[in-house]
């Protein structure tokens, strides 16, 4: 890492390897310091190297300028770690949010990405056994009619079923 201090201009220029610190990490670090100092980013002739220029808003001594650079490098590392942790926890986070959303919608556990699919499949709750029982009862009723027996208008089967359930 090359460092050049320009005390006359109250600035320090140093390079950052983008193989280690990605562009997004550098941006995050810049965002933290943007109120405290002037920051200028530039590309280098070498690939995968970024040039960062930090300039104090007030006149600074050489030590203070070096301190600026040190703080910036620390923030770079901090941003890098935070990004790595958030990447590692991304799946867990998605599952927790999915679960919470599912519980709120009354759908049960949801995996992110198939919320709509699950929602549609559970909109119509089909109890196959109940349907079969109803069909069997209707058939029986029809057979009675066909056999010429005294047909009395009875309550529909489904009403009986509902009553018996209650």
């Amino acid at each position, binding site marked *: 890492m090359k460092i050049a201090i320009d005390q006359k201009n109250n600035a320090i220029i140093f390079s950052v390897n983008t193989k280690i610190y990605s*562009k*997004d990490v550098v*941006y*995050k670090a*810049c*965002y933290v310091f*943007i109120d405290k100092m*002037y*920051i*200028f*980013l*530039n*590309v280098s002739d070498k690939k995968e190297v*970024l040039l960062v220029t930090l*300039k104090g808003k007030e006149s600074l001594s050489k030590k203070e300028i070096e301190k600026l650079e040190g703080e910036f490098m620390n923030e770079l590392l901090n941003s890098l770690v935070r990004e790595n942790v958030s990447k590692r926890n991304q799946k867990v986070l998605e599952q927790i949010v999915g679960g919470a959303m599912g519980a709120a919608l009354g759908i049960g556990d949801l995996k992110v990405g198939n919320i709509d699919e699950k929602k549609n499949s559970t909109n119509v709750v089909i109890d196959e056994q109940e349907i079969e029982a109803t069909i069997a009862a209707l058939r029986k009723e029809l057979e009675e009619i066909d056999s010429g027996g005294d047909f009395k208008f009875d309550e529909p089967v489904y009403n009986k079923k509902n009553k018996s359930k209650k």
Partner: protein
Amino acid sequence: MSKKNLLTFKFSRKLYDHNCIVSAMQEFGGMNNFYVVGSRDFLEISTERFDQRIFFEFVNYALFLTIQAK
């Protein structure tokens, strides 16, 4: 106007969003005269040296807008 009196920054298009630089120029245009030269990889922006502090504020603001746009 001689080139000696100009303070120039080359904004890499890889690092700075074009629209954000233009927005920043709009913001600071009232206080500063900007001279802009564009190329494929860079946007070269110059100003007179006596307006240095405002110019650095402009550079910072362009970076701020770029980060916010991400």
